[in-house]
């Protein structure tokens, strides 16, 4: 029997059905001797799954074996319990398994712990009462048992709050492991218990995430791990990788970050491909925190992009995806599409196309390259992704088109472009186009074909009818096309009647019905006035204004557009953990919230037509209106302006002033085909390169430590000089490279340029980076960090003029160049324009813009202070160093702060002192200080979310420098 069972297992593995042996496997486990039992259990765990009915027969056997004194029987029973037991059988064995936790033999304890973990995964409620026992397991004298209990903690600590107190124990364990206190057995390639270390590091990083005090406990041991793991073996790299991730996850510490950055460097530069992969992964993870790292490795990244290994390529794209911003979005999307074209793995395609598609509209909104690029890219996405796309991708796109923005003109321009490009596509070969692309096209043509006056409606109808005749077109698509035809059929009765005639004998009932409707409508043409109809609907929901104002009066919070909320959120945060480019995630999520609904709405347009006669031809437009309604009522209330998904119609504005304001100097390179690139060049014409030179010229390893929200640590009086040299260096660098490989250098340069801009948008919302997006309400309060040390805000602008432009315009004088500054920066004071290069093909100039934002003392009385204090919402508490060198420590410290930061010391009462200051723009910040032993407990409040953090930081620095 036993041999037969082994054969059955083999058969099953080869894919033959051996279900008739299942019952025998159970019998074998029940009745056999030890050996038979073993095979029986093995067979059971291979054959049966959690839902299988035969498992019921096994429960008793397992119970018996769990109680057995024979170690091996107990082991087997535990194994099978962990493998196949379903939720409802857990209570039966739970007490026994629990008992095993105190079994004298460690192997049993270990297996029991894992079995309990499995139970926890299946049914967390049932094992809640044994959490204390898990703690005991963690303290088990056998390292093996302890290791298995880490599985549980890794899972539990995903909601870390209740486990913070255990940080100390984990740190101690890791210290012991790293220090080689474990028995030698546990060494693997002379590394002590590497898997254990990996798990501990993960646990620590979960614990230390966004928690400074917990993080502080682990700095030492992380440092130790980083130091120890320097042998050249795979497994040490595994530990290093986890270390690096942990260092970047927990509250940042400069010294560690520096070391970690160096490790990442080693990974990325390693010749071993596995390490390179991990390095890229680490970089992808890290760029969110510190974009400069990617800059250092740009050449490697570019090499990886052309790597023969698919996985590496993919990972590189993932990385690029994270660092996309206004300047390089076109290039990166292009690269992704290239990759998609050669990629044949269905899963990857879905994944990536989804990303591109999600991303393109949002990018267009945020960075607005231009209309045609947007439409063209979406065309590519649809034709490549085809029917693998998730349904909400086309729906999203259509919604973008349909909703438009405030400016009707811009909407129409976009729609017009879409109509044009689709007509062109339809005139070509259509048989290979994916269904969803056809659906999108027919919808757009149905809705907006009338915008294009130069094209005869009959021509549109002809093209669409042609599609209907194609065999490759699915019936769902036919319905889409037919509804499109219904919309534009007005006045073209003869064509339509023919069509309706031919379709009314169709096999598809929906189609037939629609054809009937179409015929009736075209005979009775005044019913088709669906377009004016939609205008009558109050899509701004003004009838609800009364309700809203009532709610406001009753104390409801006024509605904030999502991006504003997100900004506040971002500023609040000590560590920006969002993926690169802070504004993106919100829009993503806000999109996806509304998107959920849109598929159904859109499908209504085709579905409705099936069972209602009069409604159907209006379905398309009514969908539009419904969506309008959804948009007005955001998740959080009334949305006065349509800002959340600020439709693609923002783009024209960028297209109109093509500078797109932040194009980089390096983009302008000699390119192979001037005629096609000419447009590009014009776009770059007066592009500005904002304050970036500094960022990159200082992007040495040493600087990378600057944690995201603290930005630059030193005021840089030499900014302009360093930036100009940095920029020119880089531009010459890149142009030399460009001669070698255009695409590479193209990307290279875009990486270069995007880097610092990115760092700005990630770090602070400087005026420069926001000008392009017009986020004028951005308060730039963070600026004052630099302001109060240097009293000016340096922003370096590099004006780039390619020679083509110079040919057209009269030779430029520097005053001309300043005119090229974006309008909203023009008014700011600026320094002289310095010419950086005088290459015949490129002229590069730079000037500095100053925007003042300074910290001023706020003179208030103690009473006023008290009132103000209560009215402020954002507060931050922190202990600072107390200066103890002079007589009264509190007074000394406050005076030092006053001198350094221009604060106003309102009053000092005993061991407490109150201090006030405000920004130039008005936002006050109140500081309440109390002497607490040898530390100064500082409590800051301000109406502005980021201000306390920022002032606190400067206080820390001022005190440190003192």
């Amino acid at each position, binding site marked *: 029997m036993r041999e037969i069972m082994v054969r059955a297992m083999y058969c099953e593995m080869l894919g033959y059905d051996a279900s008739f042996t299942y019952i025998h496997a159970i019998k074998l486990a029940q009745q056999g001797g030890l050996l038979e039992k073993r095979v029986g259990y093995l067979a059971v765990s291979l054959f049966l799954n959690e839902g299988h009915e035969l498992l019921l027969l096994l429960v008793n056997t397992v119970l018996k074996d769990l109680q057995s004194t024979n170690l091996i029987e107990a082991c087997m029973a535990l194994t099978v319990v*962990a493998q196949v037991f379903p939720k409802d059988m857990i209570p039966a064995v739970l007490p026994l398994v629990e008992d095993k936790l105190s079994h004298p033999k460690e192997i049993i304890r270990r297996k029991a712990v894992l079995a309990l973990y499995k139970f926890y995964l299946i049914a967390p409620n049932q094992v809640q009462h044994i959490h204390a026992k898990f703690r005991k397991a963690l303290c088990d004298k056998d390292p093996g048992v302890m290791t298995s209990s880490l599985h549980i903690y890794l899972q539990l600590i995903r909601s870390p709050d209740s486990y913070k107190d255990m940080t100390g124990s984990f740190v101690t364990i890791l210290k012991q492991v790293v220090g080689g206190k474990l028995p030698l057995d546990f060494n693997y390639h002379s590394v002590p218990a590497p898997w254990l270390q990996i798990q501990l590091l993960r646990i620590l990083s979960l614990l230390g995430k966004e928690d400074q005090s917990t993080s502080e406990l682990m700095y030492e041991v992380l440092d130790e791990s980083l130091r120890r793991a320097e042998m050249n073996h795979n*497994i040490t790299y595994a530990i290093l990788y*986890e270390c690096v991730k942990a260092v970047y996850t927990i509250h940042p510490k400069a010294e560690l970050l520096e070391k970690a950055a160096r490790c990442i460097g080693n990974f990325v530069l390693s010749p071993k*491909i596995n390490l390179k992969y991990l390095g890229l992964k680490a970089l992808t993870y890290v760029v969110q925190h510190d974009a400069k790292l990617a800059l250092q490795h740009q050449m490697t990244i570019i090499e990886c992009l052309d790597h023969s*290994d698919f996985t590496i390529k993919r990972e590189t794209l993932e990385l690029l995806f994270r660092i996309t911003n206004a300047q390089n979005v076109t290039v990166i999307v292009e690269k992704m599409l290239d990759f998609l074209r050669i990629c044949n*793995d*269905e899963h990857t395609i879905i994944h990536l196309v989804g990303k591109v598609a999600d991303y393109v509209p949002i990018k267009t909104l945020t960075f607005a390259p231009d209309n045609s690029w947007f439409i063209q890219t979406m065309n590519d996405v649809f034709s490549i992704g085809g029917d693998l796309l998730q349904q909400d991708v086309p729906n999203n796109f259509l919604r973008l088109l349909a909703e438009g923005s405030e400016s009707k003109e811009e909407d129409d321009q976009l729609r017009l472009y879409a109509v044009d490009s689709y007509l062109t596509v339809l005139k070509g070969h259509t048989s290979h186009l994916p269904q969803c692309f056809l659906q999108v096209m027919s919808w757009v043509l149905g809705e907006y074909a009338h915008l294009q006056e130069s094209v005869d409606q009959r021509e549109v109808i002809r093209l669409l009818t042609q599609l209907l005749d194609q065999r490759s077109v699915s019936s769902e698509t036919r319905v889409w096309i037919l509804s499109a035809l219904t919309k534009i059929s007005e006045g073209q009765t003869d064509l339509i009647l023919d069509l309706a005639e031919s379709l009314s004998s169709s096999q598809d009932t929906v189609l037939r019905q629609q054809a009937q409707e179409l015929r009736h409508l075209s005979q009775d043409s005044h019913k088709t006035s669906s377009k004016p109809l939609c205008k009558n609907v109050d899509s701004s929901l003004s009838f609800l204004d009364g309700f809203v104002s009532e709610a406001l009066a009753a104390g409801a919070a006024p509605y904030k557009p999502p991006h504003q909320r997100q900004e506040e959120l971002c500023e609040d945060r000590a560590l920006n953990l969002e993926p690169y480019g802070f504004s993106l995630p919100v829009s993503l999520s806000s999109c996806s919230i509304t998107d959920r609904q849109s598929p159904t709405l859109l499908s209504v347009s085709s579905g409705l037509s099936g069972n209602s006669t009069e409604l159907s031809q209006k379905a398309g437009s009514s969908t539009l209106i419904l969506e309008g309604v959804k948009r007005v009522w955001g998740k959080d209330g009334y949305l006065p302006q349509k800002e959340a998904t600020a439709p693609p119609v923002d783009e024209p504005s960028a297209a109109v002033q093509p500078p797109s304001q932040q194009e980089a100097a390096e983009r302008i390179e000699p390119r192979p085909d001037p005629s096609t690139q000419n447009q590009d060049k014009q776009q770059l014409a007066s592009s500005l390169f904002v304050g970036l030179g500094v960022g990159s010229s200082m992007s040495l390893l040493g600087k990378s430590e600057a944690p995201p929200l603290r930005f630059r640590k030193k005021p840089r009086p030499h900014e302009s000089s360093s930036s100009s040299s940095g920029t020119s260096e880089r531009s010459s660098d890149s142009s030399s490279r460009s001669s070698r490989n255009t695409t590479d250098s193209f990307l290279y340069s875009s990486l270069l340029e995007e880097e610092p801009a990115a760092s700005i948008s990630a770090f602070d919302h400087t005026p420069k980076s926001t000008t392009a997006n017009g986020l004028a309400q951005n308060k730039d309060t963070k600026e004052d960090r630099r302001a109060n040390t240097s009293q000016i805000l340096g922003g370096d602008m590099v004006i780039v003029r390619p020679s083509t432009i110079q040919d057209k315009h009269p030779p430029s004088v520097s005053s001309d160049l300043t005119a090229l500054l974006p309008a909203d920066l023009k008014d700011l004071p600026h320094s002289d324009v310095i010419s950086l290069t005088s290459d015949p093909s490129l002229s590069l100039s730079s000037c500095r813009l100053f925007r003042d934002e300074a910290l001023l003392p706020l003179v208030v009385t103690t009473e006023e202070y008290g009132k103000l204090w209560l009215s402020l919402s954002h507060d931050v508490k922190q202990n600072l160093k107390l200066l103890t060198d002079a007589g009264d420590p509190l007074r000394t410290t406050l005076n030092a702060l006053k001198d350094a930061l221009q604060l106003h010391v309102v009053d000092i009462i005993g061991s407490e002192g109150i201090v006030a200051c405000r920004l130039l723009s008005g936002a006050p910040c109140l500081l309440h200080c109390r002497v607490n032993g040898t530390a100064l407990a500082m409590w800051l409040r301000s109406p502005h979310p980021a201000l306390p953090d920022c002032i606190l930081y400067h206080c820390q620095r001022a005190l440190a420098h003192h």
Partner: protein
Amino acid sequence: MIKAILIFNNHGKPRLSKFYEHYTEDTEQQIIRETFHLVSKRDENICNFLEGGLLIGGSDNKLIYRHYATLYFVFCVDSSESELGILDLIQVFVETLDKCFENVCELDLIFHVDKVHNILAEMVMGGMVLETNMSEIITQVEAQVLFSSDSVSAVKSIILWNIKYLLNPD
């Protein structure tokens, strides 16, 4: 956690498959085929990680594999496992097999499916790594083998059946 462990040879014939999540019989076979398809295409000198097989649950998962002579060892894991860690776990697994079988080869895996499964059960339990210490694993396995003194006869009969299969694999 570990979702599945697959061993197949250069021709894609499965030699061992262990799934820690439930799939139907057909899906399992399809997973094996697809995994083989993915893995066999890859050169020796590119990395040992593969992302996002469509079948085994989406983008969170990755395949980590090693190629030894005629056999591919593939672990399918989710993102909670360390890539290099698993890579070395495969190494440990193979070294353990090597010790238990004294110079392991493909035939050992065919003739001693149960033993291989038992070794694996000592290393990975219900998708979690149980033990990574080679000597400990061997001790456990050996303790169990002591009871199976009559395993020889079982093997013999399988050999006959398998030789037939080997001569005629398809």
